[in-house]
């Protein structure tokens, strides 16, 4: 079990950090640009990054700032896939620690830039126009399955075993990812917008009539 899969509903955490900036250090923007380059050129995709985030020590997951976690994940991934070696990364890091104002090498492939910008506008739509026969229809009562633990999930832990009502059956099918280990979402399948009463999720909260919506892959649902 991974705490990263069960964040929703944890109590006693204190106030939210209401930091409204996207980047709080200049290196974060640079790192982000390298990340989007990896996305736009097919080196990796969101599921790769999420698998790494979910495999972290849970205490570290709470401890480190968002992009610090990304930095660790990106380096680990790039080394494991042989895009770079640990040795050259360490040597370069040492060089920039000793020469913080040194310029970047005047080398590279400038065709990559247009590819990355183009990727921002084309995206990577998970929609698959395949024939599907959805198990559920709008208005059906469904139970969220308690899926076995996996390296990666898109099922928020607090919804497991809970009962909701199908609000929308999305047209067609959606493929989450087929290159990382998941709990049943590596094939294109129907996705449902499911509505829950938050009092049905936590019976000790005040009844304000609040509801919660979540998009559930079909593999996560059963008839209730």
């Amino acid at each position, binding site marked *: 079990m991974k705490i990263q899969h069960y964040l929703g509903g944890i109590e006693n955490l204190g106030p939210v950090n209401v930091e*409204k900036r996207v980047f709080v250090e200049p290196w974060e923007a640079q790192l982000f640009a390298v990340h989007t380059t990896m996305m736009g050129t097919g080196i990796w995709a969101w599921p790769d990054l999420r698998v790494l985030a979910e495999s972290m020590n849970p205490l570290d997951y709470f401890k480190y700032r968002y992009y610090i976690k990304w930095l660790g994940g990106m380096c680990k991934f790039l080394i494991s896939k042989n895009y770079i070696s640990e040795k050259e990364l360490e040597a370069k890091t040492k060089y920039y*620690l000793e020469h913080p104002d040194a310029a970047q090498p005047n080398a590279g492939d400038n065709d990559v*830039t247009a590819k*990355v910008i183009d990727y921002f506008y084309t995206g990577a739509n998970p929609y698959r126009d395949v024939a599907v026969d959805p198990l559920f229809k709008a208005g059906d009562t469904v139970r969220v399955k308690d899926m076995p633990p996996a390296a990666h999930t898109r099922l*928020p832990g607090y919804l497991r075993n809970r009962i909701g009502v199908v609000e929308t059956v999305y047209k067609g099918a959606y493929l989450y990812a087929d290159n990382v280990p998941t709990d049943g979402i590596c094939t294109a399948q129907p996705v449902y917008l499911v509505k829950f009463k938050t009092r049905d999720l936590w019976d000790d909260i005040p009844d304000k009539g609040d509801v919660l919506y979540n998009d559930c892959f079909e593999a996560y649902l059963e008839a209730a």
Partner: protein
Amino acid sequence: MSDDHDHDHEHHHHLRESETYYAARTKALESLFREKGLIGTDTVDRVINFFEHEMGPFNGAKVVAKAWTDPAFKERLLADANKAIAELGMRDGIEGENLKVVENVPGTHNVVCCTLCSCWPWPLLGLPPYWFKDPVFRARVVREPRGVLSDFGVTLPDESKIEIWDSSAQVRYFVIPERPAGTDGWSEEKLAALVSTEAMQGLGLATA
């Protein structure tokens, strides 16, 4: 093990958890990418510029202002957001291939979150700010949304119900905040300036 060794070890550990180290390591990554031809010399600047000027919360604010002033547009936006934003010459794309717009009205307030990671409607809002990615926000917002709203300085009327949207699959959610009173006849440009990123995810209110 000598004291010196312990000291070196500790020093090494501290260094590896410093902003100086993160900055150097990031520079190292980009330079290796450059040397291997995996990135261009202008890619980093272009990407940063893109999110400052082309894909950012100014897009969402424009959509909200249009929705406030043109009820027919608002209906089309609520029905098919990707199609409606194209009317404004706006392009969708990454993390927004399937957008869904919801509307705050008196008595119903929408709040968007992503408890599993940081799903966010990029074409309309650019990149997610730190608060959205904060594990504390993600943990608390689904169970105690009013407490979280109060951390943002927002208090809803007692009778308001909250609808929470926890993004986990293909859809990225976006909120049209309530139009503030006293803004009749305002231009779309003037209205757009009232709309914060937070308001477009339900963690803020638009105020005049």
